[in-house]
């Protein structure tokens, strides 16, 4: 759906993008993560056809972004970071206005359908100026899918919202996937990304650092850290025994649970089990720590 290679964009005083590569496949939700100022919005602006890259190739749905005459030539819906509407139009009027644009006209019932989908049916005759941030954001998503594009580019759709608003928006994004749409969205709230994305790309100082599916990422970033829950209170003796065993890096006790950090390697679980058996320790459970996206993000961005 989106293929970006060697994308560069420089402004007067700094280079926002320094050769970015990006690949979004048909039908997936792609999370675009990065610190503020890493170049997320710049990239999305270019992809939406609103600004021109300094150099590099951008293909969106098979169309070269540099070839288009106007932004709407691309089959995509774009939601800017802070969508601005005319405060003196109502939600219904806004969508009617945006819906009628010569080239792609919408069906008569479409606006009502979209308003209901976005949960704005009750407030459709209210002026947009009186809307809350979350309602504006939902209206923004509504206007992005108004023309039923195959691809949606959402810039920070959930970042500035309260928990309820975020939940609503994430729910809508999940709904988009069920409609068979491809979604590229950016965020710096990693929890949101974890909740809805199939694949993520981490961007740092204008370059793509990592691009992987969330599942692969979890797998490859599993750390050899185990939480072992013991039946009884852990004695100091037992801790010493475990700590001195081969393959164990460090241990830490939190009441019944001992956190054991092992040396890297695929067989670390077997080694751990062996140690436990050797020391005759009764356990209730062993679980391997799942890495949070935050850990991965920090590791990748700081590992540069």
């Amino acid at each position, binding site marked *: 759906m989106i293929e970006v290679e060697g994308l560069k964009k420089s402004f007067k005083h700094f280079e926002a993008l320094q050769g970015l590569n990006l690949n979004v496949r048909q039908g997936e939700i792609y999370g675009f993560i990065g610190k503020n100022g890493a170049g997320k919005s710049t990239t999305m602006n270019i992809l939406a056809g609103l600004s021109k890259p300094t150099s590099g190739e951008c293909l969106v749905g098979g169309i070269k972004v540099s070839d288009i005459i106007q932004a709407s030539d691309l089959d995509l819906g774009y939601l800017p970071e802070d969508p601005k509407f005319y*405060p003196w139009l109502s939600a219904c009027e806004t969508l009617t206005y945006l819906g009628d644009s010569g080239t792609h006209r919408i069906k008569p019932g479409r606006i009502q359908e979209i308003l209901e989908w976005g949960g704005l049916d009750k407030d459709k005759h209210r002026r947009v*100026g*009186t809307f809350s941030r979350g309602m504006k954001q939902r209206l923004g998503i509504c206007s992005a899918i108004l023309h039923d594009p195959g691809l949606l580019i959402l810039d920070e759709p959930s970042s500035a919202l309260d928990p309820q608003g975020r939940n609503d928006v994430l729910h809508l994004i999940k709904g988009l996937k069920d409609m068979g749409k491809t979604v590229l969205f950016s965020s710096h709230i990693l929890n949101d990304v974890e909740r809805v994305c199939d694949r993520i790309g981490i961007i740092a100082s204008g370059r793509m650092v990592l691009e992987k599916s969330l599942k692969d990422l979890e797998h490859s970033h599993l750390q050899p850290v185990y939480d072992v829950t013991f039946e009884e209170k852990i004695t100091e003796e037992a801790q010493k025994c475990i700590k001195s065993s081969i393959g164990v890096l460090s241990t830490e006790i939190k009441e019944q649970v001992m956190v054991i950090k092992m040396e890297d390697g695929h067989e670390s679980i077997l080694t751990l089990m062996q140690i436990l058996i050797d020391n005759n320790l009764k356990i209730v459970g062993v679980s391997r720590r799942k890495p949070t996206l935050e850990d991965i993000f920090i590791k990748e961005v700081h590992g540069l």
Partner: protein
Amino acid sequence: MNTIELTGEMIIMLLPLLAIQMGLTIYCVIKIMKEGVENLNKWAWLAICIFINLIGPITFLIVGRKRDAS
């Protein structure tokens, strides 16, 4: 003779002018109370709209109206 004489005829002719002025002022006062203001204090705008002829309400409508609530 230092004042301007108000004749009956003159008052009748002045009525439409008064109507425009009053209409604008009332409209602005309602807007200020209902929607809030921008760029200046609410009471300042109220005073401007009520005490300055024509230009007061017009200035308010151009720069003082709260954009988000219109």
